[in-house]
């Protein structure tokens, strides 16, 4: 597993290491640089101090010699005025000066032009040391040695003070570098008349300056005020080059400082770029002459120790860094290792090993927290899994129970279709599909005494509670229906039973019907259920006109009432729960009443089983995969009547009598009746029907008269039904046949006749109908 944002293949320890290393390297480098810089500064300071100390020593020695010369000249000069009268005696003075100071190579008393009229333009008695060390004297000035324009003469004269000349090569004195100390001499009027000089060989200077050993590798210089080399390791440069010759055009600051300091006789040091390297030049002036003594040392030499130190430090730093790497690697590994262990544990847990052993953490830090979190995770997982096991077991048990409940519930309703294979007068199919394992829809039916008792219902809610009410209702229906004769009584009984102790306010809609299979006469009672649909033999679909009433279990003692109709042969009754018309698809569109009506219209010729199949097929098609939200129940019954039954519907018109006569002929033929029987039936039915036509309805009111003739169990059964005013012919007194026809009351004779011919005559007033049933044993 790789976490996003992390560079692959770089572990936490790796990154930590890199950071530690970078920070350490930075710290090391900074410390190292600072230390080296301080050390270098210190070394430079020490070197500078050392150089200046050496310079100072040397300069003191030089100054001491030069000062001694100055004193020697001073000590001699005073004698000159006393000897001016005798020019020749002046040689004695210059010789004496040489005798007084061994450093003095020569001495002259150089006079102004034409000082002595006898001596000419140039007069300068001069003594010097010969090759063998002997002191010699001669007159110095000539036209070719015009000393009046020499620096040693001219400058002290112009400055009116003693002057140390800049070093020069002496032509006469054997190619030695010399300097001349000149002191002007003044007469009593203050006019300068001569300069007394002491020439100093500077050979010792080279030795002295070269002898400075400030550094292992350095060389020393001495330069005059005009920057010419006086002392230099390369003798060719002496008095031929200045320190600025080779740097002509160089305008660097260090050079300018050096120039200013040399010109003004100041001590100091500069760092110069020379010969492709950097050199320190330490310098200090000789007080007497303002010549500058300098030590030149390569910077690398000066920082040689620093370099060694740096190398040692680099090695030390590297060692330290490596040790740091080793220690920090171990340290970080120790810290990080448990994390890897935790990672392994996490994988084990993921694979289901909730008891995987956690790494041991002894520290009380984030790792300990991680450990505790893992521990908690493991415990929680174990507990959760246990709970899940128990829940699953419970669920399985419940599911198992529900499966059993489903089987039981399904066992409570008839499922074997066609329901009455042995019968030819009715065909019935039904199907219940609960939304869950068990549901609240119900249907049931049975035949008793030639009557079909059937019920369809829908308990409020779904699932187990509804299924319990459904079971109760089914059971009650079976037990109650067999004792009570009318639908409203059965419904009322069911209602009272369900309403009794109905704390959970469950209720059940129901439609209950009793169909007289002989006559097609249907009595029914509705308890808040949706109206069944009637499909007549021609395929017209109309809802049965039902009184809504309250559902069962809502209100104890509710006065339900029955209704009745007569069903034509080949008519079909279609009953359903709201799960059918309210079946929804994913767009929450309901299947709808119109779809049911259309379904029935289009398939009216199919038998009940097929109608049920088509219904469920269309609902499934409409739902298009949407989950079934309600129990769906459909019951379909088709009344075919027996073949031993003939029916006819007549208008209340006396002209219909001929149809009646024809009908009876058909019955007689169909039932193979004897001619006398046909005659009797004709007599009876004409009497009864004419009675209804004449008396049951007001004149001009067009009404129907229903007539059914069936042969059953050795009897001819005739049922005459009309919706006219209540009239019970059985209650009419026996006709007094003794009276003349004019005197007898109307109808009495007809009824008499009917009673005479038929074995049994019954009258019932059902709802608004007069039902007259007559039987004649064959």
């Amino acid at each position, binding site marked *: 597993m790789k976490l996003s944002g992390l560079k692959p293949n770089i572990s936490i320890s790796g990154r930590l290491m890199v950071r530690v290393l970078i920070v350490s390297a930075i710290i090391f480098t900074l410390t190292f640089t600072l230390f080296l810089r301080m050390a270098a500064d210190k070394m430079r300071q020490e070197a500078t101090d050392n150089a200046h100390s050496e310079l100072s020593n040397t300069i003191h020695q030089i100054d001491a010699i030069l000062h001694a010369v100055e004193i020697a000249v001073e000590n001699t000069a005073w004698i000159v005025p006393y000897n001016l009268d005798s020019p020749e005696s002046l040689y004695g003075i210059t010789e004496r000066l040489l005798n007084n100071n061994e450093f003095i190579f020569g001495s002259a008393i150089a006079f102004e032009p034409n000082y002595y009229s006898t001596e000419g333009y140039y007069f300068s008695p001069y003594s010097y040391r010969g090759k063998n060390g002997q002191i010699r004297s001669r007159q110095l000035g000539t036209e070719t040695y015009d000393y009046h324009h020499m620096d040693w003469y001219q*400058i002290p004269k112009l400055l009116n003070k003693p002057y140390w000349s800049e070093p020069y090569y002496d032509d006469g004195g054997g190619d030695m570098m010399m300097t001349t100390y000149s002191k002007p001499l003044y007469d009593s009027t203050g006019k300068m008349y001569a300069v007394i000089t002491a020439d100093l060989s500077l050979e010792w200077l080279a030795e002295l300056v070269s002898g400075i050993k400030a550094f292992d590798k350095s060389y020393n210089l001495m330069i005059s005020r005009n920057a010419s080399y006086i002392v230099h390791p390369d003798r060719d440069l002496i008095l031929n080059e200045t320190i600025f010759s080779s740097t*002509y055009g160089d305008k660097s600051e260090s050079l300018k400082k050096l120039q200013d300091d040399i010109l003004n006789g100041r001590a100091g040091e500069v760092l110069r770029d020379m010969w492709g390297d950097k050199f320190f030049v330490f310098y200090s002036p000789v007080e007497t002459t303002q010549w500058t003594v300098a030590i030149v040392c390569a910077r690398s030499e000066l920082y040689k120790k620093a370099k060694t130190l740096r190398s040692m430090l680099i090695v030390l730093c590297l060692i330290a860094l490596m040790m740091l790497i080793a220690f920090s690697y171990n340290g970080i590994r120790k810290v990080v290792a448990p994390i890897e262990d935790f990672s392994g544990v996490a994988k084990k847990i993921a694979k289901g090993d909730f008891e995987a052993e956690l790494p041991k953490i002894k520290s009380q830090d984030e790792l300990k927290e991680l450990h505790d979190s893992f521990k908690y995770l493991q415990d929680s997982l174990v507990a959760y899994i246990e709970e899940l096991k128990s829940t699953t077991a419970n669920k399985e048990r419940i599911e198992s129970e529900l499966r059993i409940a489903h089987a039981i519930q399904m066992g409570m309703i008839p499922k074997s279709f066609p329901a009455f294979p042995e019968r030819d007068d009715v065909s019935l199919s039904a199907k219940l599909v609960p939304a869950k394992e068990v549901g609240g829809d119900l249907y049931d039916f049975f035949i008793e005494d030639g009557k079909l008792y059937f019920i369809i219902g829908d308990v409020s809610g779904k699932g187990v509670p509804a299924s319990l009410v459904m079971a109760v209702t089914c059971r009650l229906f079976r037990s109650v229906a067999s004792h009570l004769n009318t639908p409203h009584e059965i419904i009322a009984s069911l209602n009272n039973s369900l309403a009794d102790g109905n704390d959970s306010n469950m209720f059940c809609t129901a439609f209950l019907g009793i169909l007289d299979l002989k006559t097609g006469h249907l009595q029914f009672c509705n308890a808040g259920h949706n109206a069944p649909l009637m499909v007549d033999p021609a395929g017209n679909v109309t809802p049965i006109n039902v009184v809504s009433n309250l559902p069962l279990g809502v209100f104890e003692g509710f006065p339900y009432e029955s209704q009745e109709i007569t069903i034509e042969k080949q008519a079909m009754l279609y009953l359903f729960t709201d799960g059918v018309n309210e079946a929804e698809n994913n767009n929450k569109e309901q299947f709808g009443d119109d779809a049911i009506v259309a379904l029935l219209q289009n398939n009216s010729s199919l038998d009940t089983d097929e109608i049920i199949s088509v219904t469920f097929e269309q609902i499934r098609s409409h739902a298009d995969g949407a989950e079934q939200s309600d129990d769906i129940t459909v019951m379909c019954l088709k009344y075919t009547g027996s073949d031993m039954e003939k029916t006819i519907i007549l208008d209340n018109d006396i002209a219909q009598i001929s149809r009646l006569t024809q009908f009876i002929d058909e019955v007689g033929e169909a039932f193979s009746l004897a001619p006398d029987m046909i005659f009797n039936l004709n007599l009876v039915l004409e009497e009864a029907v004419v009675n209804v036509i004449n008396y049951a309805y007001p004149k001009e009111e067009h009404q129907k008269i229903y007539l059914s003739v069936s042969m059953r169990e050795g009897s001819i059964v005739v049922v005459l039904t009309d919706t006219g005013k209540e009239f019970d012919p059985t209650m009419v007194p026996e006709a007094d046949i003794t009276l003349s026809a004019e005197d007898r009351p109307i109808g009495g004779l007809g009824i008499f006749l009917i009673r005479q011919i038929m074995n049994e005559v019954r009258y019932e007033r059902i709802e608004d109908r007069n039902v007259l049933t007559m039987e004649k044993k064959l």
Partner: protein
Amino acid sequence: MKRCLFLLCFMCSAFTAMHAQQVTFTPQWTPQSQFAGYYAALEKGFYAQEGIDVNIVHPATSYSSVNMLLDGSSDIITGELIQAMEAADKDIIFVNLLQTTQHSTLELLARKENVTSIFQMRGFRIGTWKVGFNEIPHILNKLQNLNIEWIKFINPINLYISGAIDATLVKSYNEKILFSMSGITPGSVLKFSEMGFDFPEDGLYVTEDFYKRNTELCRKFAQASRKGWEWVRNNREEALEIVMKYVKEENVPTNIYNQKVMLDKLLEAQEDVKGKAPSYKLSEEAFNRVNGTLVQYGFISKPVEYKRLMGGEL
């Protein structure tokens, strides 16, 4: 036959050698790059090619080349135009054989800062050469009564450093470089070329008498000298080596850096127009300019004839 031919050749060369004319040549000063062209002409055999045997004799610091020409110890010298003009005024004609420096290289360095005119140097001690090069300042001094104390020097550096003088005359190709190389930055610099005195300077001169007697020799010498200078212009490094050879022979305290800068400055001053090849001729226009100025300031009493100075009227 072969032997005869060899003999003929030998005789010819001997004849030529016998007829090689000996000439003593004296530059104005001790050996330095100022005379590189002549050293080169000698070293590279340009003089020999012209059949001239040149002996270069440098002057002593206290005895000028003009003196040597006049006393006959030298035949041909280098000198400045203004020296020739001064002599001509005294009816001593030095004939100009070659004009090398076309512009004034004379400058004044003052210790004091912000000096922009010689008239600000009233009462100054100013260094000047013991011999030559100081005619113009003298003229100015006289005219303006500047009361300048002229201090003659052999080398002005130490005088200047010690404070013995307030200012000094220098040649831009010579002393001025020494100042730089001694680490001295002058307070002020005045250039005469910018003050209306941009006079041609160095040239080759002979006496009129010598010229009359050796006109062809003079022409050849000038020709070879010019060739020397042209060679120097194109071979500066080698020319410097030649100069340093003469420097060492005479033990002159100087160095190659100094001489290199000097050569560069001089070659620049030889160009009539900056950046163009020199003509090596004294133009009548420049001559007349000098003539006019010198007469105007009374340095010479009457104008000098150009043609005569150029050896024209013989």
